[in-house]
């Protein structure tokens, strides 16, 4: 019996994967026990997602062996992985929002009546049973997209478990969740753990990993650093392992307070008056001075992200107005905003870049007249782009590559390079570092700090308190579409922020 319990449910031996000449994953050993939550951490490019793609059957020609319950298996297709009971739940909205929860649970395997029609009664009854079994409290006949993200994730997990998954891979499950939602998800993870499901938990959020995981595997540059039990591990140590020698890049813990600045006496450059967006936020007033960074904090869905997008012209406000240098800007017209130096950087790089297009085309887009003149020449544009790419630290700084060939962090640097081509008076940031590793985050925020020093007014919307406490001078807290509190000229900490949201 002891031998049986010691055999891990899933084991990878010297698994590797190369793309062309690039080694993405090299000789990684990884083991997963039944009833274990196993964290996988590492920076971008560390090999987390490559390893998980191997397990999900998305990368057929990997090296090394994968063993399931001691038996070697080959995972050449996603179907093969699913058949072995390995299921992956992606962070992006999964499931089909227009269908009901029950339909989503039975997607692709609907039971039919004898006449060949879909058996709705059974579907609904079983869906209710399954969800009740996992203590997920939702109405199965409602449309999936009427529920928040966390519910959609939980439904996806329920679907995987009930189709026989013994190994669940959760990819960044908490990155878009508010703390109460995270708690809800963790409760589900714990229930699954107690039933012997093995769970791989990939995350950038170290606190979440430390909270839920039994063991943590650290990857760096495609290699295994170490697999350690959680006991006796703390955040700083884990970050040190992830970064290797780059200890100084680690983010500081904010359990202790941070002193925020008072409002400056300077004339505000950017003002919003009684701004409202139907279904987003209402009656928001704010002002920012040159060289000041205003933080907007709220849980996901609090309206702070919609607010920044509206300020940048990406959405049209239903009432109120926005002024730059006491000059009103056209609502819902990014052209007017850009002309006045009001610039929006969104979380989603796919929203701001033409990923199949060359980097230089993406960089020169906003200031094409100034950069390229009347007659566009590829060489001249590339030449003008290269120094800016170097300045923002984009790797590789090759303007002729397609933007989509870069990693997420570098794509965001390309977005910054675009705006650095002209004058930025007001910089609006909507979760600018979502999904990036610690080093890339740091690079991007250094660019923001540089602009701020030159007198750019910055508005930073984020659901990460640590991020705001590090970078904001003042913080507005939003909850359900309204500004609930302003933190200025006061000492505050993470807990206070979360409490007031």
């Amino acid at each position: 019996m002891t031998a049986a319990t010691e055999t891990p449910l899933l084991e990878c031996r010297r698994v590797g994967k190369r793309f062309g000449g690039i080694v993405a994953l090299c000789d990684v050993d990884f083991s997963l026990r039944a009833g274990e939550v196993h964290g996988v951490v590492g920076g971008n490019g560390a090999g987390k997602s490559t390893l998980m793609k191997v397990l999900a059957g998305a990368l057929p020609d990997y090296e090394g062996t994968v063993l399931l319950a001691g038996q070697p298996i080959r995972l050449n297709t996603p179907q093969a992985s699913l058949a072995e009971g390995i299921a992956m739940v992606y962070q992006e909205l999964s499931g089909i929002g227009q269908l009901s929860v029950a339909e989503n649970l039975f997607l692709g395997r609907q039971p039919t009546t004898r006449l060949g029609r879909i058996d709705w009664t059974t579907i609904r009854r079983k869906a209710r049973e399954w969800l009740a079994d996992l203590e997920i409290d939702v109405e199965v006949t409602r449309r999936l997209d009427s529920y928040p993200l966390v519910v959609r994730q939980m439904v996806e997990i329920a679907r995987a478990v009930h189709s026989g998954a013994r190994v669940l891979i959760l990819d960044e499950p908490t990155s878009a969740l508010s703390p109460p939602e995270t708690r809800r998800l963790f409760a589900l993870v714990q229930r699954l753990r107690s039933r012997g499901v093995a769970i791989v938990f990939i995350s950038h959020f170290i606190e979440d990993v430390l909270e839920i995981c039994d063991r943590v595997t650290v990857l760096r540059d495609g290699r295994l650093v170490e697999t350690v039990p959680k006991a006796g591990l703390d955040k700083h140590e884990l970050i040190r392992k992830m970064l290797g020698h780059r200890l100084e890049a680690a983010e500081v813990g904010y359990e202790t307070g941070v002193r925020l600045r008072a409002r400056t006496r300077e004339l505000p450059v950017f003002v919003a008056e009684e701004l409202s967006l139907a279904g987003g936020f209402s009656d928001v007033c704010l002002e920012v001075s040159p060289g000041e960074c205003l933080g907007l904090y709220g849980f996901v869905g609090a309206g702070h992200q919609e607010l920044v997008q509206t300020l940048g012209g990406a959405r049209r406000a239903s009432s109120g107005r926005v002024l730059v240098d006491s000059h009103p800007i056209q609502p819902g017209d990014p052209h007017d905003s850009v002309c006045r130096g009001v610039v929006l950087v969104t979380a989603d790089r796919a929203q701001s870049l033409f990923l199949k297009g060359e980097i230089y085309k993406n960089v020169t887009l906003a200031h094409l007249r100034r950069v390229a003149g009347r007659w566009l020449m590829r060489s001249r544009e590339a030449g003008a782009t290269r120094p800016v790419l170097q300045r923002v630290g984009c790797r590789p700084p090759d303007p002729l590559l397609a933007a989509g060939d870069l990693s997420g962090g570098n794509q965001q640097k390309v977005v910054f390079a675009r705006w650095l081509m002209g004058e930025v008076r007001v910089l609006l940031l909507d979760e600018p570092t979502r999904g990036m590793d610690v080093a890339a985050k740091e690079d991007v925020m250094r660019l923001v700090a540089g602009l701020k020093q030159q007198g750019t007014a910055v508005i930073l919307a984020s659901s990460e308190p640590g991020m705001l406490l590090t970078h904001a001078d003042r913080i507005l807290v939003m909850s359900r579409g309204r500004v609930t509190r302003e933190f200025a000229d006061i000492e505050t900490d993470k807990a206070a922020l979360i409490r007031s949201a």
Partner: protein
Amino acid sequence: MSDLSNSSPFFRRWDARDIAPLVSLAVLVVFFTLAAPNFLKVATITAILKQGSVLAIVAAGLTFVLLCAEIDLSVGMAALWCACLCGWLYQRWIGGGSSEPFMTTAAVLLVPLASCLLLGFLSGVLTVWSALPSFIITLAMMFIAEGSSRYLTQSKLLKIPEVLAVLGNDGLQSGGRVVVPYSAMLAAGVLVAGHVVLQHTRFGRYVYMTGGNREAARLAGVRTGRIVVACLVISAATAGLGGLVNAGRMTNVTLDQNKDLLLSAVACVVLGGTSLFGGEGGIGKTAIGVLTFTTLNTGLIQITWINDLARQLLTGVVLMAALVINGVLAKRR
């Protein structure tokens, strides 16, 4: 982290997707040279140029529309409308008279072209304003253009200015035979102009970026609505021009002209490797697509042992093979 071969512009410029259309063209030329002894003659090439010129002019404008991720279904009927209005004005203003005063003739040619600009502008504004797909708006515009042509001409055959007949049939001669048709020269001019606009002007870049990622272009300050309108105007203008040249080739206007112009033009653009989803492609590719398509049509006619009634079927089969091969190569990248 990037592959070396990937970062070198040389290799990037010569990937399989870009070469595939050229290869299809080469294969066709070699095949027809072997299968039809008369294929590789000056006369054949002249015929290809003459036939291809209308398609090239229309496809050049259509390339703009496809690059910005829209479609213009009205090109064929816009071409017909342009020719019909031209014929109608000709009958009205010049009548059967033997002399064609310069100014009147110019008006007879320019007024229809201007009306096409208006059609394109209307399609564009309605597409942007209603936020409906251009597929729907230009589909309606197609019926409007066809209906207007029918109403205007009362289904009668109309004469056109002599200058169009010259443009459509005459050309630079050598040894008493037309070698380079004027229409081909006009088409070359349109293609070059289109290429220059797309590759070397800000407007051209905005077209690519609007098609590649409209939201990104909008957030970067590009007025994407105007770009879409402009592309549909360009497409309608080239369609009108193509319609005039085609009428010139026939030396008159009838309602059965330009029936399959739309689908041929779309086939040419896509055959060249321009994406239907925007952002990728160009005029150079369209030129290759037009040559391939016209070579295929002309070559099949020259192979005498093929049954006349089987030609269209064969055209379709070869076209599909070429499109699928190009598509698969593009996907593999």
